[in-house]
């Protein structure tokens, strides 16, 4: 199972990095989401992989348990990355709508007061 989880994290990260290096915003955003999925699975695994174990200590008998802290961390990470993805989708959408161009890179002479930037 370790190999499966590790390769899943690896493949998702690799695919995410490939997509981030694309030139249009949509694949870049997809790549960012893939990477955040990868990091969520990775965070989950930092508490060691344990099957069918509760995330709490049992004070009556000595049973296996899984580390609850990574689960709390991953919850925070999911919420934050979800929110961030929503933000970048909105900004990318308005950037696309206002400039009719979804390339991620800017022209060398782009600046906020360059003449003729109003599309």
């Amino acid at each position, binding site marked *: 199972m370790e190999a499966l989880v590790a390769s899943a994290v690896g493949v998702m990260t690799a695919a995410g990095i490939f997509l981030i290096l694309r030139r249009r915003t949509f694949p870049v955003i997809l790549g960012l989401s893939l990477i955040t999925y990868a990091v969520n699975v990775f965070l989950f695994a*930092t508490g060691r992989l344990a099957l069918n174990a509760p995330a709490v200590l049992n004070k009556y008998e000595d049973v296996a348990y899984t580390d609850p802290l990574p689960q709390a961390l991953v919850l925070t*990470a999911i919420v934050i990355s979800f929110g*961030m993805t929503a933000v*970048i989708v909105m*900004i990318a959408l308005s*950037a696309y709508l206002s400039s009719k161009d979804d390339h991620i890179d*800017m022209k060398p002479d782009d600046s*906020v*007061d360059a003449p003729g930037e*109003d599309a």
Partner: protein
Amino acid sequence: MNHWIVAPIVLPAILAPFIIMVLRYHLDLQRIFSIAGVVGLLGIALTITAQASGGDIQVYELGDWPAPFGIVLVLDKLSAMMVLLTALLALPIVLYAIGSGWDERGKHFHALFHFQLMGVCGAFLTGDAFNLFVFFEVLLIASYGLMTHGGGAVRLKAGVQYVAYNLIGSTLFLFALGTIYGVTGTLNMADLAVRVAEIPPEDTALLRVGAVLLLLVFCIKAAVLPLHFWLPASYANAPLPVAALFAIMTKVGAYSILRVYTLAFGPDVAVTDGLIGDWLQPAALLTLAVGTIGILGSNHIARMVAFCAIASMGTLLIAISLFSETATAAALYYIFHSTLATALLFLVADMVMERRGGAIEPKAPMAQNGLIAALFFVGAIALAGMPPLSGFIGKLLVLDASRDAPDATAVWAVILIGSFVTIVGLARAGTLIFWKSYDAAITPPPTEETDDDAQISSTPEPSPGLAFASVFGVVAGLALLTIFAGPALTYASGTAAQLFTPDDYISAVLGGEE
């Protein structure tokens, strides 16, 4: 427990939603509450700085959970100083934003501004690495809103780049924290320091990976070469008062490097031996070099000031990477100075851009040309590090501290040549913008000013009195930092001494039983 410690986070955290939910249609009330909030923050910052200056480290346990299990806020001299700097910077910027009318060019400026302050103060105060991540995200998500404030096609495109870059940075941060947690089983910084020291050297491969990833994340925030690519386009295209506030954000990266690599991965920990000295220092030298070349090569004033920010981060990180007590004291003095100087130049650049556009080329003289030129002159002197302002003292301290360092020649050469190129670059920009405009050959522009978009020209005339007053406030801050360099340096030395005896911090957080 001393509840003042949590106040710099709670005050903006309450004020910002209040502004959004109750005052969203009342710009005047928003402004009043926003200024009041920043003044309140300044008062709180002064109080906690006074409390911290005694030298004892205070711990605030959130939810009253004891230290390694719950999240702690820690108030020591460094965090108090950084919160004070944040508040000192925020006051003139909020006044400038109001005076120049920037806050009415989009929605929710003041609310986002206070969320940003909350994130910055939280990042400075927290004693938990994952909580540091959370506060980073708070300040980033507010900065996304501020960065695209006012809209416009180019600004939004720059915003997409900025958000994408920082999302990758946040993901790296999570990878780093996961790795460190997987090895040590803790994310409390003081606890981390204890655990890291206990790990046998042959088991540290993963931890080393985690430490390097973490350094990379902080270097992205601090815009260290080669991770600085996000900064020029973002800062130059952000509303410039916001860019002035962002001057503190790169310092959050520098602060995190100082905090984590003196405490958790300290200088005597074998795991990260050579990480700061061997890797960060050349990167910092390159940062300064590229920053100054950027100053010389920019054809737009906002971009030039953004490169000034990179160059000053270079100087700052050189001082940090020397990693001695005197060098750290110099770095702390320089943090204060460079934040104010960069902010000053951004505000002056905004005045220039509002009046004549930002291109560094001769145009007809603008309104209040002489006054703005004088302010630019002051900012340039401060940033380039010429006497009589605090930049000179700061650079002198850095140079002095590096005298006994092994590669002092390189440090001296880069800082001195860099300062010279900065002077040339700023002088070139100042000449072209302010002096050449009186050349008879330059014809006045047809009718309209070549300003941003229709939305801006439809706003009422800015009230320059308040804007100028706030810029003069920043100048006064720099002057005070110069006049009271002695007390400031005493405080900085005390802070550095505290940083280099992490045992006090650890025993304060963990209750001294370990």
